[in-house]
């Protein structure tokens, strides 16, 4: 996926301004930055949820807007936090929707096998007949991930997947992200608030400030005192734990 000169304006003010980057296949890339830096808007545009004002997003050598929505749904999945959580659907019914781009309303035996596998992979077997509105936040998030796995796309985009989860569930979520990449070979793009999760679990980090890319590179390239202090406007210390950079800010 290649993004060039992406621009998005709200009320004449550019919230995303000439953003260009290239996503590495088969890696985890985190988009970070302070509030209002435009990272979620960029995520919205590269997942076709938000219309762009200018620029090129080429996905598999074709512009994103030229993709048929249903074809794109087989290659790229996006999970946001704006779902109706009160719907009384069982976990199984939710995961089955992941097969919708392929089979519509008629599930084949193959679809059912994929659904069962996705539920197993997310260890939701005992919850599969529970309604999603009865689950805890962490379990529900896992159910959505299972749906995305059933959707069987090469790219998985997650908008703030750790939002509103406690430390235990958020850490679990990040481990799942890592497994999606390492075990299932997915390309994962995330929007994250927590820099240390980004540092610890991703391969690449793209940092945004004021609608522009402030720094894009491997974790080690971005996670240094100067870059982070510049991005967030606070003092940073970088420590090393398990060979990975971790930041302390105060």
């Amino acid at each position, binding site marked *: 996926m290649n993004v060039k000169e992406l621009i998005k304006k709200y009320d004449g003010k550019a919230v995303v301004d000439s953003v260009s980057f290239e996503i590495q296949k088969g890696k985890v890339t985190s988009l970070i930055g302070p509030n209002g830096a435009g990272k979620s808007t960029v995520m919205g545009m590269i*997942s*076709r*949820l938000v219309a762009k004002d200018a620029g090129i997003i080429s996905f598999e050598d074709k512009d994103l807007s030229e993709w*048929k*929505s*249903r*074809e*794109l*749904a*087989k290659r790229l*999945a*996006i*999970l*946001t*936090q*704006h*779902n*109706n*959580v*009160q*719907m*009384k*659907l*069982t976990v199984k*019914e939710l995961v089955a*929707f*992941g097969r*919708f*781009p392929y089979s*519509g*309303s008629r599930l084949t035996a193959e679809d059912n096998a994929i659904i069962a596998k996705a539920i197993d992979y997310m260890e939701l077997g005992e919850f599969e*007949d*529970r*309604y999603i*509105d*009865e*689950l*805890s*936040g962490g379990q*529900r*998030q896992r159910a959505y991930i299972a749906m995305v796995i059933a*959707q069987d796309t090469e790219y998985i985009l997650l908008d703030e997947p750790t*939002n*509103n*989860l*406690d430390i235990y569930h958020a850490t679990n979520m990040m481990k799942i992200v890592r497994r999606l990449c390492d075990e299932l070979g997915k390309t994962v793009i995330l929007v994250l608030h927590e820099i240390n999760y980004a540092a610890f679990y991703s391969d690449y980090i793209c940092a945004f400030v004021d609608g522009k890319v402030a720094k894009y590179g491997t974790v080690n390239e971005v996670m240094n005192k100067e870059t982070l202090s510049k991005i967030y406007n606070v003092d940073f210390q970088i420590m090393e734990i398990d060979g990975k950079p971790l930041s302390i800010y105060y």
Partner: protein
Amino acid sequence: MFRKISSKSWFSTAILAGVLFIFSVVSLFVGVIDMNFGDLFSGGEKLELFFITRLPRLLAILCTGTGLSVAGLIMQQLCMNKFVSPSTGATLSSAKFGICLTLVFLPASLTTIWTRAIFSFVFAILGTWIFVWFVQRIQFKDTVMVPLVGIMFGNIINGVTSFVAYKYEITQALSSWETGHFSMVLRGRYEIVCLVVPLLILAFIFANHFNIVGMGKDFSQNLGVNYKFVLFLGLTIAAAITASIVVVVGEISYIGLIIPNMIAMFKGDKIRGTLVDTALAGALFVLICDILARIVIFPYEVAIQLIVGIFGSILFLFILFRKLKHGRKAIRLNKKEKGGESA
């Protein structure tokens, strides 16, 4: 506790269908003129009566019950709000406004049941679209606000209708549609209500689309479902169903509100799994209310709207209290929480 039932979903459907069949037969033989099963075979006047009033009445009842409850189900899913229905979403009042306009502005030669149907259909769609557009623009945080706005909007339309009716002196003609009743259902003037059947089939085909759209805009787009198209399609189906019922029977409230909610309590929100049960339960509810309406002051009958209003409000309170008792969470249906809390 209700979860276990869903694995045997055919069971409840079979029971509902069985009970509905029994009451349908009962309904056919309730009336001023005493009729029994043997009369159907002896032919003559009674058989004719059967085909002129009894059978049309039963068909109209079944179409009304299934139609209004399914229209409510679709609207609740698409609006992500359990309290939206044809009567709380301005659909019914807009349909009546359409009928009012045909009575006032079309020459008498043109005011057939078909022109009335077309007008009420067009206005029902417009009213519903405006309501949903408005609700989506405002993005209420509070679930109860949505139906309240719908009720207010519906009352404004009703006010305009009454004004026009008063001004052109058709209040009396219009009153026939104000309170729904089946006493005027006769062969030759009820057939339009059968349009409900193809619309129900259409609703069943698109059931999963409605579910996906009910999960939210981002969710739909992720699965390659055209959010706006399905939203408009669903609302149009709901409005068409409502209009074809209103034009024949008149306004009947509550059905679209309570029946889908009651079925959803037992069977969840997956439309493919609940649509048939919702339709059957709606038909059964209207049928029982109609039989009561016919025997309560026998040999006269009261308007079904009256009976539906009484039982409907009781059932509605029951649903409301049950939701209150089982946690505040259940009643804030539309709140887009980000799911941090434990269920």
